[in-house]
């Protein structure tokens, strides 16, 4: 079957009334949590996992698709109206977006963000539909050594490239890998790190880990540093754009998309680098460079498009290789596994209808975001005024409910509290959260590939580099690891350059 007809089948599945309803719920829920401080799409998907066990996997994933794009969109509303971005991917949007809002152009900022997200999301999803099958074709020829190498690359890239401190990234990764070890070893049946506790034999449920780190850790952390006087959100009416705004926006949208998708698809994915690149590019190319720093619309249009295109790009390795590169994709991968679906290149052949319905619902979700959110923007702005005690008490309440309903064990709630305390500590001392989550999810799979590889080579370590792809990947790994040392050498020879971003943003969080 070719891409087109598979996609049409996907639309047929996704547009049944029931599935369409789940898409609408997903988009609204996703935007709401994206707008609300303290909540992100990764956490929402984690919280909803137990609830969706009662649904068909297809319906559940259609809803997740809506939450994923909705969350990305909602983040931009917060950063434009509040100037304190919750996700690092919207840090750049806040720079110009909030200046625009303060200058009375909030409606235009929100409009260019929404329409730019739609354009980028649609192109990005189309690229996903075209690229993913190609990656799959390439990926089915890969053996265990290559998979092992690629997963190592993904872990190292996320740990070493993102975040401000590599050392703290690796510390977080180590903790995640250790958590992933808990339970019965699948090959030998040995109990590892269970401390004689039978309830630990099945390992720690990924839902419990994700909810603990994202939700409980966040709620405790915010409670410790709650703003005494809440930030004032800039009121906004119906988003709209004038003719000159359109003229200044459409090129940044397309350029942002071109930055976003490839970066999202890379193992070190994430939206931080492309949004930043897009901002710098627009600043250079703009005919109104004097407006930058005072609310230039290009500085919102480009990064927002890059952000959404990166979100679409991230799904390419997730669906084609079973390789998540951001937190939401990681939790969605965990969802696949909990439905008994094996992610990886076989996914397209074994679960074709589900995957294509998911891709089709990404298109639908994108469209829904545009038509639902333009009129609802004033409502979302009101949501920002929700009293904080209710918001964070609610997060704890639903985190407890979600974690408890997986196994109906009070023991899971103790794990939730302990790992929540760990999440608190990580936020306090600047340990990034993403390496830990990826370590928990990818750790056991990496170990599986390692053992398969050496089983095939009868214990000869040379089996690890027995495939050409694996060798190439190891070279990339070596470059990533050596990069900061090379950078130091370059810096020593050249005096420091001025940073391109204003240093006011401060959010080092890339958990969403």
């Amino acid at each position, binding site marked *: 079957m070719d891409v087109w007809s598979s996609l049409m089948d996907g639309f047929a599945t996704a547009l049944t009334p029931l599935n369409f309803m789940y898409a609408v719920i997903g988009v609204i829920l996703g935007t709401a949590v994206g707008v609300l401080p*303290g909540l992100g799409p990764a956490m929402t998907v984690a919280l909803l996992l137990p609830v969706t066990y009662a649904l068909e996997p297809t319906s559940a994933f259609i809803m997740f698709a809506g939450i994923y794009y909705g969350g990305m969109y909602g983040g931009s509303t917060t950063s434009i109206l509040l100037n304190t971005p919750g996700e690092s991917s919207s840090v750049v949007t806040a720079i110009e977006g909030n200046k625009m809002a303060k200058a009375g152009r909030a409606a235009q900022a929100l409009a260019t963000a929404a329409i730019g997200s739609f354009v980028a999301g649609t192109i990005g999803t189309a690229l996903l539909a075209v690229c993913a099958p190609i990656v799959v074709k390439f990926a089915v020829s890969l053996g265990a050594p290559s998979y092992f190498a690629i997963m190592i690359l993904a872990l190292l890239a996320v740990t070493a490239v993102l975040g401000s401190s590599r*050392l*703290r990234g690796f510390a977080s990764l*180590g903790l995640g890998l250790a958590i992933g070890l808990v339970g019965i070893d699948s090959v030998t049946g040995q109990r590892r790190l269970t401390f004689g506790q039978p309830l630990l034999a099945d390992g720690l449920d990924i839902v419990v880990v994700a909810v603990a780190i994202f939700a409980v850790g966040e709620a405790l952390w*915010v409670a410790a540093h*709650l703003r005494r006087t809440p930030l004032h959100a800039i009121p906004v009416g119906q988003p709209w754009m004038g003719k000159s705004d359109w003229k200044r926006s459409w090129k940044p949208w397309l350029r942002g998309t071109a930055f976003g998708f490839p970066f999202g698809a890379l193992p070190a994915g994430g939206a931080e680098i492309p949004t930043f690149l897009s901002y710098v590019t627009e600043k250079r190319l703009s005919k109104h460079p004097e407006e930058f720093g005072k609310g230039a619309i290009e500085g919102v249009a480009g990064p927002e498009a890059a952000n959404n295109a990166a979100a679409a790009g991230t799904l390419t390795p997730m669906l084609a290789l079973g390789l998540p590169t951001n937190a939401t994709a990681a939790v969605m991968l965990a969802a696949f596994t909990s439905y008994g679906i094996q992610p990886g290149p076989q996914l397209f052949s074994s679960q074709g209808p589900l995957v294509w319905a998911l891709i089709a619902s990404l298109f639908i979700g994108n469209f829904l975001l545009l038509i639902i959110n333009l009129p609802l923007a004033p409502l979302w702005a009101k949501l920002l005024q929700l009293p*904080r*005690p209710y918001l964070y008490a*609610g997060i704890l309440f639903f985190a407890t409910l979600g974690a408890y309903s997986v196994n109906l064990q009070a023991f899971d709630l103790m794990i939730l*509290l302990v790992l929540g305390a760990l999440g608190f500590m990580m936020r306090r001392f600047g340990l990034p959260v993403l390496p830990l989550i990826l370590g928990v999810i990818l750790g056991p799979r990496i170990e599986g590939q390692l053992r398969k590889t050496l089983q095939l080579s009868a214990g000869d370590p040379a089996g690890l580099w027995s495939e050409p792809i694996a060798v190439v990947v190891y070279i990339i790994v070596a470059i990533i690891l050596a990069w900061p040392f090379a950078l130091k050498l370059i810096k020593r020879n050249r005096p420091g350059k001025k940073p391109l971003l204003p240093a006011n943003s401060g959010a080092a969080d890339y958990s969403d």
Partner: protein
Amino acid sequence: MSSLATSLKGRSELGVALLLGAAGVVVFLDANGLVTPYSKSDPVGPKTVPFIVAALLIVCAVMLAINVLRGGKGEAEGGEDVDLSHPADWKTVLPLAGAFVLNILLIDWAGWVISGTVLFWGSVLALGSRHYIRDGIISVALSLLTFYGFYLGLGIALPAGLLEGIL
């Protein structure tokens, strides 16, 4: 002694290094305690990866300790509702954690409706709301709604506990 005390002041991050090191040692000891004969079908065995993870944790612990003693500092995470200009407010966090623990202790015995009410009401109070009655009504409503919602909508029976037979 006093020089040691001053050099330790404001270095609470050393606790993180300690935790990492302890985790590394635990992972190592646990893996070391596994008994497995060498098997041809599994040359890697269940010990190799834990050993690598333990090494990673211990190396990170040592390097973090050195980094902190040299004046390195992790950047505390910002956010919409986070104000880092005042120190951690334990008078909010501890009661909040208390409400959470109370829920764990109560959930199986008293049931979700009671323990969930305690959790939400306690959390809202800890976070600074002073509308006792309104908050109480919201708490009960939320717990009841989720109890019936999960039971009727999802087929998940949350524990009824003390209210068994009434609900």
